[in-house]
């Protein structure tokens, strides 16, 4: 059986991360799968590598794999810079997802709720990149 997958949602805004996490958890029926990380340590807009580390570490420590979804430019850089410091064993258990923040989070949460492995969760979230709305 594959490891369970946790989602970490990294946004510049604590409110945006929390809102998307709430939506994704509701759609997928389970808040335990989604962690919201948003804003800087002093409560401003921005991304915190320490907060990202803490959220991912918590998931890894409970034996889960981690899909990280990010909002805008510097969130990508924060996540990539953090990933670059991981050892290979952990690096294999964390994936940065190239998907729209909200749609990707919902797709990933739903897929994760079926017990799918990390690769499948990431693939389904990345499908959301090409979905048209109209």
């Amino acid at each position, binding site marked *: 059986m594959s490891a369970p997958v946790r989602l970490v949602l990294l946004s510049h805004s604590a409110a945006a991360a929390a809102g998307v996490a709430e939506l994704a958890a509701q759609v997928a029926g389970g808040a335990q799968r989604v962690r919201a990380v948003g804003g*800087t*340590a002093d409560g401003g807009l921005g*991304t915190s*590598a320490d907060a990202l580390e803490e959220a991912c570490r918590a998931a890894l420590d409970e034996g889960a794999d981690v899909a990280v979804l990010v909002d805008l430019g*510097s969130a990508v*850089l*924060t996540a990539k*810079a953090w990933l*670059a410091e991981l050892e290979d064993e952990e690096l294999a258990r964390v994936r940065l997802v190239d998907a729209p923040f909200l749609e990707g989070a919902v797709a990933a949460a739903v897929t994760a709720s079926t017990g799918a492995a990390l690769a499948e969760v990431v693939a389904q979230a990345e499908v959301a990149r090409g979905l048209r709305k109209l």
Partner: protein
Amino acid sequence: MSAVAREALDAAAAREWLRGFAAAVAERSGELTDLDRPVGDSDHGVNLRRGTEAVLAALDADGAGGAGGADGTPGQVLGAAGRTLVSTVGGASGPLFGTALRRAGKALGEVPAADAAQVAAALRAALEGVVRLGEARVGDATMVDALDPAVAAFERAAQEGAPLPRAARAAAGAAAEGAASTVPLVARKGRASYLGPRSRGHLDPGARSVELLLTALADALGADALDARAGEGA
């Protein structure tokens, strides 16, 4: 600013470099933010200053043996500062400048005092780390436009046998030219890229900060002391 020209980048010189960079960022944070206003989200100066102030606090807090202490290697000092920048900045400049310092620190390894060739290799590693992370190339109107020619100028000076401070001054000069070269460019990375052709006519704030970083290196290594001595014909 070092009153004497240094022959090597040791831990003390690395700390002086970081202190000088922090002072420059503090002094220019308004200017950096003004540069960021038309092309970014007006936070470059504020963000970078938050990071460099945290670096200063860490240097002050660490006792001997830590990165701020009398012991340690320049690689440790730069690596610790890089981690602090990644953790504290909040914007894109944290991961980018933090990665630059971390890669430079890693490249220096355990060497207690780096010579010009070793510093050149560290700066090359910093550039490669930034390019890999940000996926920007020369001409995209980013910090790479300053860092790339600066590293090349440092390497050229080092290969020609220039003393370390002079190689750093050459790098700082090339960084300044590189930063100025971003003015007519159309930004292709970051938030400025959303502006398309309207991003022309602005100096990239990240490139300007690279210029400050390398100027601080030249100052910490005592480039002016070396030039003054040369001026006296000594």
